[in-house]
């Protein structure tokens, strides 16, 4: 069904439809060159915001070694599976590079945490984290991935892993790949008629009405 017909089908008037078609077109164009979106001047941005993003993109925070470590960690946290790709497939390391510049409070915990991890690995395996064998990497991560059973001396590692796990998950599940994996169906013009009957029944909520509330 073409978009104009589908809009008509869901009962949106001509005026809204015209506006929406523009809106939809904009979205599509943006997706085509997603890489350059931050560079382009958006009409919805203030000059101070355009300048800010330009500045943030003009320098690099993480060293190439740190980025390599983030990439390996990211793919351990969110690996490829039968539904979708890995964190690095969704360009999560690039997101983390941006976000730590945007939110400077993450910079020391990330840099220091990566250093902490490398030193642990040097002491245990005589190698930096990225140079360890996969099995060694996972042994290391097992010591910091479970806040409920922390060995003595590992607390700082647990705090670091908490942070990077959150950044990786946010980066992945807000990417196009991650949003599709989750099955988010919104952000499109539609008509909201309430929770479908079958779902209401599934949870036994047939009797929930405002009269009873």
């Amino acid at each position: 069904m073409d978009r104009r017909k589908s809009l008509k089908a869901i009962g949106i008037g001509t005026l809204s439809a015209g506006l929406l078609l523009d809106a939809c077109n904009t979205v599509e164009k943006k997706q085509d060159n997603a890489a350059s979106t931050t560079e382009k001047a958006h009409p919805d941005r203030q000059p101070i915001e355009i300048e800010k993003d330009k500045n943030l993109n003009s320098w690099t925070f993480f060293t190439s070694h740190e980025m390599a470590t983030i990439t390996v960690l990211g793919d351990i946290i969110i690996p490829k599976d039968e539904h979708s790709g890995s964190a690095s497939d969704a360009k999560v390391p690039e997101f983390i590079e941006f976000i730590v510049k945007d939110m400077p409070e993450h910079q020391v915990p990330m840099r220091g945490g990566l250093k902490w991890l490398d030193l642990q690995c040097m002491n245990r395996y005589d190698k930096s984290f990225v140079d360890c064998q996969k099995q060694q990497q996972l042994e290391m991560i097992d010591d910091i991935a479970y806040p409920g059973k922390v060995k003595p001396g590992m607390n700082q590692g647990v705090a670091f892993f908490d942070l990077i796990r959150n950044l990786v998950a946010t980066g992945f599940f807000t990417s196009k790949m991650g949003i599709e994996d989750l099955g988010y169906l919104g952000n499109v013009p539609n008509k909201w008629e309430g929770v479908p009957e079958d779902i209401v029944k599934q949870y036994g909520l047939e009797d929930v009405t405002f009269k009873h509330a």
Partner: protein
Amino acid sequence: MGDLQIKKSSKVYDVVIVGSGAGGGMAGYVLANAGVKVLMLEAGPFFDPAKHSSQLKFSYESPRRGARTKERGFGDFDAAFGSWEIDGEPYTKKDNTEFDWFRSRMLGGRTNHWGRISLRFGPKDFQPDDGVSERWPITYEEVKPYYDKVDRLIGIYGTVEGLPNEPDGIFMKPPKPRLPELFIMKGAAAAGVKVIPGRGSVLTEALPGNKDRGTCFYCGQCGRSCKAYADFSSSSCLVIPALKTGNLELISNAMVREVLTDSNGLATGVSYVSKDDMQEYQVKAKAVVLGASSCETARIMLNSASKIYPNGLANSSGLVGKYLQDSTGASQSGILPQLLDRKRINEDATGTINIYGPWMLDNKKLDFPRGYHIEFGGGMGMPGYGFGGYVPKLNGKLPGRDGKLKEGGGYGASLKDDYRRFYGIQFGMAGRGVGMARIDNYCEIDPKVVDKYGIPVLRFHYKWTSDEINQAKHMQETFSRIIHEMGAIPTSAPHGPEDMWGLEAPGRIIHEVGTTRMGDDPRKSVLNKWCQAHDCKNLFVVDGAPTVQQSDKNATWTILALSMRTAEYILEQRKQQNI
């Protein structure tokens, strides 16, 4: 140097309006449509939701995935420019008290950021009989016709409930609840908390007689402003239509310094600095209407001192800036474990509230005056920055697909699956209540500090008392009861006396009102009941500042109704040649 000059326009407007938010926008709309020549000054840039909204962008179209910045305090897609701090425009605080001041310098002001939750003050909000709250000089019956007109002009959804202090309006059909919201309704009923359909200014039906505005297409993004003009923003619903009359001129980026007065004490116009060229300008008008926001309006009046007005314009009462009020706010969030692995549906619905908990309790049995309402929400929204933060904290507490418990946290395929399983099961509830009007909660001019335009800035003094703290405690107890009855797990940190039960700092709820309160006695109020200054008959205030005592209801609908009423009063006074 030597080239500094003040550019004075010789044109005399009928009315100059300072500010383009709900108050200024409505006054401009009414006056321009009545043929009055209006000049509107806005301290920020032009903004048209049809062209400038971020509506229908996905999170990945923001490099920070929609996260907040200092320049945009409610996230990268929110329509409102500005935040709690604006570069070059400081404010200060006195005696270690707190007040956080959110400003949005742009066409439409803070109507670009608000929940579109649209509530009338009730009869007991205007005329409280609790022996504690001060009464307004007007009654609900006097304001009702204006609420009715605002409903018809702008559009609002809701249901007729016939509750004593929650007046019904002229409603369109409300949106249906989302799945987690059905659980909230069930839990609230069991906890004895009344829940009714939400009331919001979103067009769920075509607005009769209006060809410029479309109807809601349920993207749930009102906060980004609506390209179809299907929700209320002052820009799309008031100022842009007023511009089309040809009777309203708008100057953007015009930061007002002071109101100018003559030797008789009458307002003659305003002076402003243009942010575009940093030059000084003066414009003349027969009447001045301030709608700059409660605190900015007080700032302009206090900065407009003259021989006749040594304490600031129209401030013989000494009350300009006093009785500043913000709503109380406290909240909790949680997840519904029974919804793990729920079926995917498009649950964006509207960007305001689907269900609402009005205040129904009797204060005689409580240890605080007045009350609060509850705003509920939850559902399968677009994942944005911060997504899934609670998943590694809770995945060890709930059985997996295999029915077994595992160690919480983790990584890899099993964690990735947990994010899917936990998606769309979260909800939140937030109380918004009455902050009592007190003379010692105020803003004043800081004697030492100016902003980058050389304008003296505001200094705030605001403290909560046991009235508000006990109310927040009651909110938390109510939320906990509802969450328990829902069979849900709280995800927000527990609150207690150590953090005033999660009571937000004054200013955080962005319902600032008071500062130029209305009243019949000029010694005890700044404005008369028409929002006209007692001391200066051609000066009017149309934002939240005339509020005597706020209600738990969000202020916007009342600001709109009172601004419309004041604009009609101005028309009447012009007819009688009084101004």
